[in-house]
Each structure stands twice: as structure tokens, then as C-alpha cells.
């Protein structure tokens, strides 16, 4: 049998291969592992001839590569692959020796005849989300190398936008630690690097023996994916081995929702929201963070923001009630928010149902209401007024059919069913929310599946387990004891694109193909079917996708030709079109090319009205009636809530962008501290160091680094230890635990980062929450890194300006002349500016005439600034959810490095666009609101940074951009000091070209002499030494493969250089070149987008030419809600922010004194001493902009301010 690989690209020089005799000798002599005799069979122990025979079959001479290869992927290899890729015909070719050459068609306005070096091409594909569903993407490729992920503009799900997960998924492709070769866990020698040929040899004999018994003992643990090709693969496996176990699995699955909706509809369905201006008026979220980290987040964000954004004063605006445990991005959007522990949320849901259902005049509803009438539980902690006003709002006739009640993972199935019933009774189904059938594999319960599988494995009923695309050893429920069961399976095969804990202990660990290098298909939550097409040949030859492995395994039983992913997908789709499952045309080739080109199949998107209807009220009633609501938590019986953070269930933990993306609320990075409300933390004695109620920000200012105290959290026998951090606005006596951290074998980025909380999750939990946990202070402290060290706006209400809808309606159209004149002409103030300092600033007449545009609003006609394009941006804070997609998109586009935990804790993060978060209100435990404000360089026309740079490294461009010239910059940092927005980012070290983490030269020596320290990731596994003390020249350089991801159009900055947002100047210039080539006289509006704008799922960012009167940015910039951040400094920013409008329910406000005051303030919303009549408390206007504490200096300051305005004649100002 010849297994010699004939492909030159996969042959890496001569390998020294051990001979047969040598091997056998080794096997016999080295038969000890960990000091114990190890044998696979009695034959081996006795060194029987049969065993030698077997061994020979297993490792034929010349087929094995027992020598560990040089693991570094050389540039030469890469170029070889890429050279082939370019050579192999035209725009789009997938090269490969074994594979047939297939064309993938580029998505572009005109198909280029050939690649133009330096000009990227865009191809459509889709990203199968790890939590279900898919996103339609466009991938920017440079000379065949994918560099950037963008949303597909014509894909119905994404419409050009995408999420942090999709954006960061490219890091999985270029992860330097990806498994490159199959690894065989030789029982004798331990792990050996093998070849695919070895695997095929092994597998062909191994799987052959299952032919007789129909696959008994064979089990497949696969990811939950919903693709036609995957379904075909499953069906094929089931046909071939009817007795084989097929277990679709997901680590942290939304089980309760699936169960509850199945209960309500009698079939597995998925809830999809149809938010929109016309469809949504009231949204009630019961601990559901529907704007982040869920399969439909991009749809939800788009629709919800459309229902919120007010452009004219007559625009309707939806109202959001959020009842949640801790601030998520959805809670930050709330008009009314109630913090409740998960058990109280359940009680609230029942209370809401009891209130609403009888009043609907609906027989079903009345029956259900009667059924749950007995469901009690105490009402402790539930604000009855809130509940009733919220319910009344839902019941308003104009809101019927235009509301949504949605429920989060922390709630048991019955609550999900109840919400579906309420949605049905309110007439929402088919309008504002709809339910689609779940694909078969997605409908399976992960928890039940893995529990059953583990039991089978434990009982020895599984002899071969194929694990593909999942990591159960890390994320299986704790009571399943998967790890132990895994060891009892004779042969385990694990396929993963990145390192996993499961692969580390499998018999065979196989390198998986990333979705950017494999064929497949996926379905979005709205049903849209999208092909997954490779952008590049697998970087490591032979890497297989999940469907390829499944097909290959099937083939091993009956050796035939190799199975190719492209053909698998094509066959499945042909069959699908033939059976009518896919709405395709008779000309399949044409249909297929269209689908690849567009990135989706037209006509597969489900209309809301086509969703499932018919809620089984009787079933819901039965389930809800048996709902046991546990008592309100107390300090010794805490409620626990499990949730996912930016790294998902842990599968994306090795993506440093996501690790360094601040979590909503806490703004912590690189960690998952246990979150408690300040009050609870104080009661339990686990407040962070430096905390006091009077000075909550002391946790950031008192210790050198923010320092958390360690605690042990215990549920029954199960125990997890971790640091405790406080989150304002959390429910008391509740702890939030973020899963996915504490990886042990996931790669250098994530190993040892954070704490593994999976040991607390069990398969019998009704929802992702638990009751009756205890938390005790443990010894030790722990450093926390946060990008934002201050909670409040510190009385600076004009930073994030927010008004209530009533104010917007009343004053939105009003334009008043302002007293001051920034531009030496009477200033006409719209609402946005009337809310800030500009309305109070004394005249700022300058004797200095700017030679370019003078000190007037309009540029001098002859100056360069009078000619278009003049770039400008607006950021609408009303719809910004704070999800962080802009940050990641910018990081990807502009090659922004990550800096690690310690550097972030020092305040050295490099992100060009950050999202500031402020809590408002007077009580840190119960803030009134959480506000988000994205800030990037605002490209001031009078830029303070430009005048102070001694070397002219930051200068003004003719199109209004503030240029940063890296090679001119010597790094005096004066510009950053003088920047009022603090958007400039300094390369304190060589972040861009050296590893932020990982090995460095001389590590052994340094570690020997330096006491162990937390290291950059807080990990005990990596970086025992503070890497800041390792000179960058000694740090390992970035791997070649990592550098392949970089955008070649953007410079990688060296140390000692300042950087900042450039308005994506590379995109501007590319657009300019294109328009010039097309002989257009100007760049049309929307011709290109900045990276942040392009990513923003809620369309909060607008960018364009402000001299173009028809451009969107001009309209937004001149909009009444637009204001210039710190505009009174006369910096004249080109980026304007837009006032956030909130839509509180006046009836609910009137229940409290503070609310009443807020309603009263609508009559005179403009604060400041100039208006008379309310000087002392004039700043207490709306929910926005209070400090936590009653600041004793505040009143004096306000009086001083008022007095000074009087002195300066400000009393007469508008």
C-alpha cells in the first residue's frame, strides 16, 4: 500500500521515517506511560506475533511521520500556496492538488478579468454562528488572502452589517496555534504527529468493523448546525450505520427557550423578532439581552434601532421595558428598567400574564389566566406599579399587535411558553414576532443528548466517538462527567479548527478547516439559506470541514475516492432543488452561481406572516400552572445567572480582539469576574479594594490596579472560585457568572484567562440560572482590568445629552438664536446645542483668522475647505447599543493590536473607537440609566493636537481629515495631552509587531529568577513574568501567519508612535481612485463606508461628505438632535453626536416623586443659570446626567456657575 503523498505542496522535504522493526522495538520497549505499564491488549503485553502484525498494519513503514514537524508555518509555504492560488486562473480559484479546481465567483460590481495587485476582491460567504443561525458576509481578500470580514449588503439577514463574532472569526483562520497535522495519541509513545495518510490507514480498518453491526458502538457528537449539506451528511451516516448515535450538541445552549416554545407550539420553533418602525411600539424584555450575543442579534439591532430612531418630531418611537438581573446592552436601551433576580423575573412574568390575559377578551387567554391564578410565590421586590403600568401599556389598543414580550435564558421553559402565549393573545405573532421551525439538528436538546451519550460512554456502549466542531470536555454540564466517560471510549476522534480541551485527550486530534477555507451552507434565524464558500485553500494541507470528515468516515468503511466538500454541498443542493426544499431554478448551474455570487438564496427568507401560529394555550396553562417560583434570594441564598460574554461559550476565547473588548456594564476585559450588586458585595464583605459607598470610584483610584477580592461560590456540592466585581444596577442577592473563560487547552491567548464556571452548570437546571447559592470570601485578591475607570459623568450632563420624547416633540423643531457666536455670526441653536455649553458660552470672538477657513462656519470660498468632499461623521446615541462591533471592525480594518490585560489595566488600550459607558442617578446600587457613547477622533477643524506637535506629524488635510503621519511622529505625546476627547493612542511598546503574550527569548532564564506573577493574562500557565519588563526586542515576533491577516493598506505602527482614527483614509483614497477611473466628478454618497459605520448593526454611524447637500451625513449633521461634543471649546469637530431620546411612560413616572419631577422638567428642559427661576436644582432635569452620590460641592458649583453667568451678562442669553 502506498501512502506517499504525491502533492509537492504538502510534502515538506524529506522526513526521517522510522523503520518497521524500529517502530516495533520502540513500541515494546517504551510501554510505560506515567510509570505504569500500558497495553492495548493482552497480546501486546505478551508481545504476541499478532500484535506485531497489527502494529505493522497500523504503522506501515514509510507511512508514519513520528517525528514532530517543525511547527512554524513558513512564509515560503504560504506564498507557495498563494502563488498557486493566483496562478490558478483568474479572480477566483480554489487551488489544491487533491481537490478539483472549482471557481468561486466574486461579488463585485464588475467581475475583473484578473486580479489587480493591491486591489482587494470581495467574495460572499456566510458565518455559521456558534450559537445557531448564520450571518451573510463579504470577505475582503487581498491577493487571495482573506483580511477583513464585512456584512453582505444584499443578504436579508445582515444587510451589510455584522456582529463582533463574525468580525473576529477571521482570527480563527490565522490562529498560529491551529492544529496543523493529525495527532495520534499513541498508547505507547504518547502524542505523535501523524499524517493524514496515517489517519486514513488507521480509519479504514477501524471503521470497517462497524459495517456488520450497523454502527452499534459508533457515536457522533457534532455541532448544532443547520445546513442542507450537514443534514445530508447526517442522513448518509444514518443510512450507513442505522445504529450509530448522532448527538448534535452546543456548549451553552438556550435549552429553556427551545423547550418552552416547543411546549407552546407543539413543535420545535425559534423566536424571531420583526422589530421595525411600523411593527414595534412596546417591547418587554424579561431578562433577555436580545441586542447582543444571540443568533438574531443583527436583525434585532437593525429593527429595534429603526423603531427607536426619531428623525422628525412626529416620528413614533417604541418603548422598551427591561426587567433584568444585570445591565446588558439591552438594559442600557431601556426606557424603564427594573432590576430583579431571576426568580423574581419569573414572578414578574407570571404577574404580567395574570394582569394582561384576563383583560384581552380572549377565551384562550382567560383560560390560561385562570390556570395560573394559583401560581403564587411572593411578590417581594416586584414593583407593582411598574408591572401594572407596563401591562397597561401593552394593553393599549394602538399597541396591540405591535408589542413583544421576550424572555431570556435565565427563565424556565414555562415562562418562555407563557410569553409566547401572551404574544399570541396580544396579536403580536406574525407581526412583531414570529416563530419559525427549528432545523432538525438544532431542535435536539444538547443537554439530554450529552447526558444520554455520556451514560452510554460510561457503560461502555460507545466504542468509537467522533467529536466534530464541539468541545464537550470543557463545556459539558458538570454532572454529566463527560471527561471521565470520554476516557472510557476506546477510540475518540476529534476534529477542531482550533485547539480544544477535547482534542488534547482524544485518540486522534484532526485539524479542522475554518469556515473561510471550506464549503458548506448555513441558515440564518430568518430562514435565509446561504452558501459557505472557501476564500482560501486550507492553510494546513488536508484540514477537513465537518461535513468532509463525516463523509470521509463513511467512506473509510467502504474505501472509495476521497470526498470533497464542494461536491458534498453541490450534491446536497442539487437534491434540495430537485425535491423543492430549495427554491431553485431548473438551470442549477446558473442558480448555484447566483447563490455563490449573492451569498444567499433568494426566496428562502421567511416572511413574518408565514411563521408558525397556533399557541397551545392548554399546554402552556398546564406547564405554567406547575411553575414553582422560588422565594426571593437572600444574602445567604443567592440567585445565580449564567450568561455568555464576548467570547461566547468559550469557543472564541482564543480570539484576542474579543478578550479585549470591554464587557457591557463593567467594561472589564480579559476576565469574567463574578458580578454582584454593590450592596450585596458589601453585605458579603467582598467589595473590591478601595470601595466605599461614598466614594465608589475608589476601587479604581485607590489601589494601583483595580483589585477584586476572591470568593467561593457554592451550589450544593459544586464549587467555583473567582474574583468578585461590582456592577451597578444589578439585582441584589444575585450573582452573574460568565461562561467560557478559564480555558485549559485553548491556546496561549485564553489559557488560564478568567475562571471556569461550567462546574456549576448541571444538566438538570431548568434554565441558565440557579437558586440557593452561597458566596463566601476566600483568601487572596485578583487584578481586574477595565477600560473605563469611572462610573459617572461626574455632573457633566452635556457629554451624553439625553432628553425624553416629550421634550423632543416639543422642542425638536424649535430653533432659537443663541447669544454666543462661535463663528462670529449669530448662532442658531437647535435642540442638541441648546442642551449644552454652547447655549451658555460667552462670545468667543477670535482675533486670529484661520488662513484656510477663517473663523466662520462656512469655509472661505477660495479655500480648499470650500471644495468637496469634506468628510464628516455622525453618531446617533439614540440607537447605539454599545455592542462593540465598531471597535472590532476598526481593529480589523486598521491593524490595531491588542495589548493584553496588564496594559489595559494601565490604561493603554489601543482601540481607535471606544464606547464610553456612564451610569446616571444618585445611587450606585440603583443607577437610573446606563448611557453609551462611542468616541473616536472627531477630526476637529481647529484641532488642538495639530498646533502642539513640534514635528508636524499630525496635520490637517484638505478634506477636513486630521492626518496622522506615523513616520514623522517622534512620540512627544503632546497631541494626546491636548486632545479633549482623549482619542489618541500611543504605542508604549511594540504592540504591533511583537506578541502581546506568549513566549519570549530568554524566558527560561527570566522565569528562573523572577517570582511568579499574574502575568499579562492573569494566567498561571503563561507569562509568569510581567511581560512589560521584557524588552520588546526580546519578545517573540508575531508569527508570519498572524501577519497574513493584516490589512496591507494600513501601516503597522512601531513603538513610540501616536495613532488614532483616520476616518478610514485608505477607504477614502480607494474610493477616490475608483471614482476618478470611472470619470465621476465626485464620490457619490454611500459609495463606501468607514469600517465602523459598515459594521454597526443598529446604523448609528453615518459618514460622508458634508458639502454634498443630498448626503445622509449632511442631513444628520444639521439635524436638531445633533451636537458637537465639547463643542464650546471651539474645536469644531467633524464628528457630531446625536442626542439620545428616551421614551418613558408618563404614567409610570408619575408613581414616584423623582419621576414626577422628571415629567415636570419637560416643560423647561434647558438647564443652567441663564434661564432663571431654578438655579439651585436646575440640573436635575431628566433621568440623564446625575452623579451617584449627592455631591455636596455640586450645589455650590451650580450657584457659582449661575453667578458667573450673571457677572458675564449671561443672564440675558437664550
Amino acid at each position, binding site marked *: 500500500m502506498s501512502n506517499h503523498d504525491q502533492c509537492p505542496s504538502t510534502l515538506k522535504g524529506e522526513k526521517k521515517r522510522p523503520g518497521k522493526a524500529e517502530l516495533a522495538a520502540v513500541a515494546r520497549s517504551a510501554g510505560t506511560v506515567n510509570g505504569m505499564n500500558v497495553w492495548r491488549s493482552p497480546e501486546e503485553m505478551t508481545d504476541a506475533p499478532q500484535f506485531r502484525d497489527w502494529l505493522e498494519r497500523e504503522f506501515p513503514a514509510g507511512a508514519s511521520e513520528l517525528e514532530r514537524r517543525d511547527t512554524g508555518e513558513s512564509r515560503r509555504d504560504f506564498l507557495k500556496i498563494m502563488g498557486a492560488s493566483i496562478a490558478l486562473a483568474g479572480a477566483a480559484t480554489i487551488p489544491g492538488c487533491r481537490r478539483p479546481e472549482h471557481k468561486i465567483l466574486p461579488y463585485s460590481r464588475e467581475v475583473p478579468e484578473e486580479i489587480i495587485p493591491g486591489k482587494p476582491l470581495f467574495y460572499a460567504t456566510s458565518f455559521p454562528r456558534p450559537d445557531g443561525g448564520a450571518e451573510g458576509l463579504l470577505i475582503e481578500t487581498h491577493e487571495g488572502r482573506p483580511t477583513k470580514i464585512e456584512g453582505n449588503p444584499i443578504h436579508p439577514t445582515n444587510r451589510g452589517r455584522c456582529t463582533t463574532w463574525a468580525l473576529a472569526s477571521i482570527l480563527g483562520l490565522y490562529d498560529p496555534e491551529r492544529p496543523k497535522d493529525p495527532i495520534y495519541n499513541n498508547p505507547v509513545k504518547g502524542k505523535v504527529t501523524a499524517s493524514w495518510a496515517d489517519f486514513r490507514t488507521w480509519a479504514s480498518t477501524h471503521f470497517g468493523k462497524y459495517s456488520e453491526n450497523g454502527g452499534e458502538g459508533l457515536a457522533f457528537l457534532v455541532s448544532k448546525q443547520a445546513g442542507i449539506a450537514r443534514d445530508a451528511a447526517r442522513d448518509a451516516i444514518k443510512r450507513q450505520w442505522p445504529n450509530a448515535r448522532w448527538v448534535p450538541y452546543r456548549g451553552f445552549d438556550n435549552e429553556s427557550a427551545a423547550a418552552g416554545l416547543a411546549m407552546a407550539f407543539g413543535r420545535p420553533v425559534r423566536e424571531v423578532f420583526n422589530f421595525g418602525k411600523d411593527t414595534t411600539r412596546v417591547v418587554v424584555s424579561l431578562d433577555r439581552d436580545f441586542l447582543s450575543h444571540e443568533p438574531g442579534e443583527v436583525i434585532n439591532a437593525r429593527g429595534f434601532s429603526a423603531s427607536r430612531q426619531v428623525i422628525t418630531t412626529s416620528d413614533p418611537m417604541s418603548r422598551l421595558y427591561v426587567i433584568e438581573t444585570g445591565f446588558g446592552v439591552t438594559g442600557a436601551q431601556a426606557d424603564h428598567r427594573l432590576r430583579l433576580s431571576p426568580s423574581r423575573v419569573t414572578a414578574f412574568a407570571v404577574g404580567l400574564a395574570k394582569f394582561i390575559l384576563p383583560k384581552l377578551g380572549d377565551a384562550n387567554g382567560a383560560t390560561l389566566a385562570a390556570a395560573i391564578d394559583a401560581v403564587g410565590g411572593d411578590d417581594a421586590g416586584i414593583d407593582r406599579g411598574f408591572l401594572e403600568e407596563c401591562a397597561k401599556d401593552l394593553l393599549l389598543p394602538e399597541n396591540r399587535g405591535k408589542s413583544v414580550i421576550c424572555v431570556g435564558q435565565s427563565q424556565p421553559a414555562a415562562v418562555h411558553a407563557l410569553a409566547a402565549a401572551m404574544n399570541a393573545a396580544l396579536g403580536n405573532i406574525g407581526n412583531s414576532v414570529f416563530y419559525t421551525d427549528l432545523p432538525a439538528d438544532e431542535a435536539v436538546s444538547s443537554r439530554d443528548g450529552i447526558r444520554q451519550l455520556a451514560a452510554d460512554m460510561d457503560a461502555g456502549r460507545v466504542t468509537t466517538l467522533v467529536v466534530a466542531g464541539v468541545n464537550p470536555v470543557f463545556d459539558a454540564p458538570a454532572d454529566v462527567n463527560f471527561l471521565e466517560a470520554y476516557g472510557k471510549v476506546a477510540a475518540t476522534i476529534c476534529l477542531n479548527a482550533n485547539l480544544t480541551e477535547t482534542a488534547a485527550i482524544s485518540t486522534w486530534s484532526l485539524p479542522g478547516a475554518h469556515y473561510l477555507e471550506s464549503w458548506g451552507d448555513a441558515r440564518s434565524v430568518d430562514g435565509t439559506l446561504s452558501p459557505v464558500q472557501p476564500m482560501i485553500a486550507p492553510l494546513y494541507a488536508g484540514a477537513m470541514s465537518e461535513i468532509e470528515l463525516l463523509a470521509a468516515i463513511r467512506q473509510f468503511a467502504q474505501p472509495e475516492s476521497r470526498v470533497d466538500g464542494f461536491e458534498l454541498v453541490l450534491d446536497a443542493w442539487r437534491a434540495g432543488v430537485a425535491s423543492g426544499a430549495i427554491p431553485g431554478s431548473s438551470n442549477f448551474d446558473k442558480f448555484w452561481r447566483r447563490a455563490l455570487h449573492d451569498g444567499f438564496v433568494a426566496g428562502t427568507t421567511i416572511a413574518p406572516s408565514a411563521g408558525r401560529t397556533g399557541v397551545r394555550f392548554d399546554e402552556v396553562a398546564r406547564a405554567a400552572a406547575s411553575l414553582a417560583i422560588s422565594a426571593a434570594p437572600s444574602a445567604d441564598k443567592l440567585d445565580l445567572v449564567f450568561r455568555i460574554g464576548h467570547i461566547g461559550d468559550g469557543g472564541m476565547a482564543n480570539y484576542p480582539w474579543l478578550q479585549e473588548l470591554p464587557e457591557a456594564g463593567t467594561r472589564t476585559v480579559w476576565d469574567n469576574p463574578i458580578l454582584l450588586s454593590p450592596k450585596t458585595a458589601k453585605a458579603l464583605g467582598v467589595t473590591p479594594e478601595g470601595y466605599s459607598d461614598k466614594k465608589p470610584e475608589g476601587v479604581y483610584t485607590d489601589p494601583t490596579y483595580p483589585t477584586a477580592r476572591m470568593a467561593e461560590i457554592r451550589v450544593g456540592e459544586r464549587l467555583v472560585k473567582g474574583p468578585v466585581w461590582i456592577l451597578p444596577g444589578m439585582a441584589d442577592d444575585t450573582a452573574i457568572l460568565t461562561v467560557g473563560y478559564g480555558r485549559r487547552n485553548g491556546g496561549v491567548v485564553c489559557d488560564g484567562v478568567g475562571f471556569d464556571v461550567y462546574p456549576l452548570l448541571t444538566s438538570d437546571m431548568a434554565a441558565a440560572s440557579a437558586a440557593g447559592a452561597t458566596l463566601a470570601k476566600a483568601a487572596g485578591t485578583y487584578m481586574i482590568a477595565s477600560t473605563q*475607570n469611572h462610573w459617572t459623568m461626574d455632573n457633566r450632563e452635556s457629554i451624553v445629552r439625553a432628553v425624553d420624547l416629550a421634550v423632543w416633540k416639543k422642542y425638536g423643531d424649535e430653533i432659537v438664536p443663541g447669544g454666543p457666536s462661535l463663528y462670529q455670526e449669530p448662532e442658531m441653536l437647535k435642540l442638541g446645542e441648546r442642551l449644552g455649553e454652547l447655549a451658555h458660552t460667552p462670545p468667543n470672538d477670535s482675533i486670529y483668522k484661520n488662513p484656510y477657513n477663517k473663523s466662520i462656519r462656512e469655509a472661505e470660498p477660495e479655500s480648499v475647505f470650500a471644495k468637496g468632499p469634506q468628510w464628516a461623521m455622525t453618531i446617533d446615541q439614540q440607537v447605539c447599543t454599545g455592542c462593540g462591533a465598531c471597535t472590532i471592525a476598526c481593529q480589523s480594518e486598521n491593524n490595531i493590536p491588542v495589548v493584553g490585560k496588564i496594559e489595559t489595566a494601565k490604561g493603554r488600550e489601543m482601540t481607535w473607537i471606544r464606547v464610553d459607558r456612564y451610569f446616571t442617578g444618585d445611587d450606585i446600587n440603583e443607577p437610573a440609566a446606563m448611557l453609551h457613547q462611542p468616541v473616536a477622533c472627531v477630526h476637529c477643524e481647529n484641532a488642538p493636537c495639530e498646533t502642539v506637535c*513640534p*514635528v508636524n506629524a499630525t496635520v490637517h488635510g484638505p478634506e477636513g481629515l486630521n492626518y496622522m503621519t506615523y513616520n514623522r511622529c*517622534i512620540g512627544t505625546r503632546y497631541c494626546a495631552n491636548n486632545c*479633549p476627547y482623549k482619542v489618541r493612542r500611543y504605542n508604549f511598546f511594540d504592540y504591533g509587531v511583537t506578541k502581546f503574550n506568549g513566549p519570549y527569548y530568554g524566558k527560561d532564564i527570566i522565569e528562573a529568577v523572577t517570582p511568579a506573577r499574574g502575568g499579562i493574562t492573569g494566567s498561571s500557565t503563561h507569562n509568569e513574568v510581567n511581560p*512589560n519588563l521584557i524588552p520588546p526586542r526580546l519578545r517573540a515576533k508575531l508569527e508570519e501567519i498572524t501577519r497574513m491577516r493584516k490589512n496591507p493598506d494600513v501601516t503597522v505602527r512601531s513603538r513610540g508612535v501616536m495613532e488614532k482614527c483616520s476616518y478610514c483614509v485608505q477607504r477614502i483614497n480607494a474610493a477616490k481612485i475608483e471614482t476618478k477611473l470611472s470619470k465621476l466628478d465626485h464620490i457619490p454618497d454611500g459609495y463606501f463606508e468607514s469600517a465602523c459605520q459598515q459594521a454597526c448593526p443598529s446604523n448609528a454611524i453615518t459618514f460622508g461628505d458634508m458639502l454634498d447637500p443630498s448626503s445622509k451625513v449632511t442631513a444628520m449633521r444639521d439635524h436638531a438632535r445633533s451636537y458637537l461634543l465639547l463643542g464650546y471649546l471651539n474645536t469644531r469637530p467633524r464628528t457630531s453626536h446625536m442626542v439620545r431620546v428616551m421614551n418613558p411612560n408618563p404614567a409610570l413616572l408619575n408613581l414616584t416623586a423623582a419621576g414626577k419631577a422628571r415629567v415636570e422638567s419637560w416643560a423647561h428642559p434647558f438647564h443652567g443659570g441663564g434661564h432663571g427661576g431654578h438655579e439651585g436644582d436646575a440640573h436635575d432635569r431628566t433621568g440623564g446626567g446625575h452623579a451617584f452620590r449627592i455631591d455636596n460641592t455640586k450645589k455650590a458649583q451650580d450657584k457659582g456657575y449661575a453667578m458667573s453667568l450673571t457677572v458675564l451678562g449671561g443672564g440675558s442669553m437664550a
Partner: protein
Amino acid sequence: MSSIHPDQTTAQRLAGVVKTPGMQPIPPGSGDGTLIDTPGVRAPLVLNNRTFTEVTDIICGYTENAAPRWWLPMFGFAATVAGIGGLFILYLVITGIGTWGLNNQVDWAWDITNFVFWIGIGHAGTLISAILCLLKQKWRTAVNRAAEAMTIFAVICAATFPGIHIGRQWMAWFLFPIPNSNAIWPNFRSPLLWDVFAVSTYGTVSLLFWYMGMIPDFATLRDRADERLRRLGQGGPTILPFIPVRIDAVRVFAYGLLAMGWRNSGRHWHRYEAAYLILAGISTPLVLSVHSIVSFDFATSILPGWHTTIFPPYFVAGAIFGGFAMVLLLLIPSRELFPNMKDFITLRHLENMAKIILATGMMVGFAYSMEFFIAWYGGNYYEVAVFINRAFGPYWWAYWAMISCNVLSPQVFWNKAMRQSPIVIFIVSFLVTIGMWFERFVIIVSSLHRAFLPGEWHMFHPTAVDIMIFVGSCGVFLTLFLLFLRFLPVFAMAELKAVLPQASPHPHHDEPHGHGD
């Protein structure tokens, strides 16, 4: 008819020798005798009735005699500290600015604090040598040489920091208007560039002033060495026992080179006096301009706490304040350690300088209070917040350290006994030096760490590299000053002799109180 100058009379009376009839010896108890408040008696500027020869011998002796026993260990210590600081600078340059405790909110901290601190120290020297010279304050002659030396050394320390604080130190030449292939000039609008010009001008002029003043003294040292060589033939001590080079030969060569052919002729003296006066005239505006321009680094920015029009006078007053404190800090130990130095640096000199410290200390105190007043009066919330934060925010300790050292501690000088006590003056000077460092720290860090947008507020925590580079700069300063004490003429001999009583005999005086004649 007496040919005795009234000053000499005083000197005689102090010595208990009364040659003039009717004169009584001045009783002991008036300090060292220079603190006379009697208007009729002119206090001597040099004690112990020194003759011209004695003055020359004493001052030249500091360089010609064997080094005091403490000198070498102290020099070794200072040089070691300087060397360690140098190694930390090397580490900084190799590794990156990240070794300092800076972050994206606080981009300057100890680096610029040290720069402004040292450049401020350098102000007293030029003030003493130029402004006091023009104002004919004769007491300056005893301290001007040392103060000028201190200025040079402080400027050297100060100039280090802008050079090393930039991110790419090897590109520091971009700061100079050197024609280059990019055809890009420096940005003349940037105060940092003004700094480059201001500090280099100041350094150059101060060096010239200092050096020119030393030329006659170099000639003296040269001639004395030459004379010894002639007298002893080839004898005299060698550099080291095994190096047969006479120390005096080295002196003749080195001082001869430095003396630039000075022959003590009347024409030389004429030119010298004119040039000295011209340099004093040039230096005088520089005293005011340098620190004004340094203050522009802050004043021209838009940062609350920096953007203040009172910065130029406030910085100049603070610089004089801190500079005098440093002069005292150096001279008080020197006069204790060197023989006969108390004859030249008398208590009266110390008291005069203490008075200047008291006056300038109150000026800076006034500036501190005005900042608060203007912040309140200006009605800008951000401005108010910065100053409240300064006094009561996380860096309150730095602010109150500054206030207590700079405003409160000099108040002891209202008491005459206190400002005449060298130990009290020394302690206060020490406190003032610390306070002035904190003043710059407070201005820079407390303004930066909480600027406009609370979302980016961060604390600054110094690292070992921050600290050791500052300590190293102190080592450099001390090393250079010790070298100065050992190898250069510490006093301007000719000028000192000019203020001796015998330098101005008045042949027509009969009356001891004949000042008015």
C-alpha cells in the same frame, strides 16, 4: 585724616581691634557679625579681615590642595547614582516609553515634571549673576559662581528629559530645524519647539556667562601652577605615583587653555567688564523668557488646569523660588565643609536669600489661590472640577504636599532668628525643593488624569524606571557640582577682592560715618 575705609573700621571693630578713636568693638552676639542692622555701620561682605592674598590663597586652595576626605566617597556615590540613572535611560530607550507608568490619559508625568523642575532650578543662577549684577547688588559676588554652575548643571539635567521622553529617541533631531530630504520643517506653532529654542539659548548664554566670568580666575590658577613649577623645577606631586606627569603641568595646560591667553592687562579688564555687562544684559530677559516659554507648554493647551494666563509670571516666580532653594541647599553644606568658606558666604548672604525665598514663596502661594479664584470666577465647570479634584481628588496628597512645602514652610522666615539659622534655612530649602517638584507634578498629572471626558479617566502610578531616572538626574547634578567644587574657581576672585574694604580706600575720610561725603 584717615585712610581707613569705613568698612575696614567695621572689620576692625568686629575683630576687637579699635584703631579709630571713639569707636567701640562690636560685641559678639550679632551672628557672625554681618547681620548688623545699624544703618550707620556697613556690614562687611567678607569676614575675618581677609587680605587680597588670603582670598586668592583660600579660593585657589580649593582646587590646589588635597581633596577633603569626604569628597571622593561622595563623588563616588553621586557618580554611581548618575550611572545607574544612565543605565535606566538606556533601558528606556531600548525598551520603550511603556516602562514608565504613563497611559493614554496621562501622557506626561515624571518626565516633564523633572524637566520643568530642573529648568526651574536653573533660574537662580542667572538671576543672581545677571539681574543682581545689573542692580549692583554686591553680595552676589560670593554666590554667583556657584549659582551659575548650578544653572548649567540643572540645564544639562533638564535638557535630558525632553530628549528621552519622546517615543523614538533616535529621531530627536526632528525637533531641530535641519533641512532634510522630506522638506518638512518643525511646527513653529508648537510650544515644544519654542522650548527647544528657549532652553538651548538659555543654556548657551548661561554657559558663556559662566565661562567668561571664570577666565581671570583660570589665569590665576594657571599662573600659580606655573610659578610652582618654576620654583620646584621638575618637582611637585605627580598625577599618580607611576605616571610621571606633574599635576601642576596638567593645571598649567588645562587652565592655560581655559584662560584663553588672559594676561591681566588693563585692556583685557576693560574688554572683560564690557562683555560681562553685555552678557548680563542679554541674560536678564532670558531669566524671564525661559520659564515663560516652558509655561507655554501648558498655558497654550486647552486642558483645564493648564490653560491659564497667569502661568508665565507664576512659573518665573516659582523658578526663582526653587532655584534659590537649591543654591542654599548646595552652599550651606559647602560652607560647612570647605575651610574658610564662611568668610565669603556669610550669614547675611543666607539671610538675603531666605528673604527672597519668603517673597517668591508668597508669590507662588498667591498664584495657587488665583488659580482657584479664576476657576470659580470663570464659571467653567470643567475648570472648577479640575481644581477641586486637585485639592480633594486622588492626588490630594501631592497638592497638599506642595502647599505645605511651598507656601507654609517659608513662613518661618518671618522670624529673624529662623532666617539666620543655617540649619533652618537648609531644612526649608529642602522642603521648598520637594514642594517645587510636587508643584510641577500636580500641574501635570492632576490636570491630565481627569480631563474632559470621565470615560477615559485613569490614574498614573510611577514605575521604578520613572523613579530611577529622576534619581539618576539628581546624581548627575551632584556629580557635576562636586567636580565644580574641586576643579574650578568656586568664587570670582577678582570680584570678591573688589568688595573687600581695602579695594576702595577713601583717603579723605575723617569721620567713621562718612558715607554721605
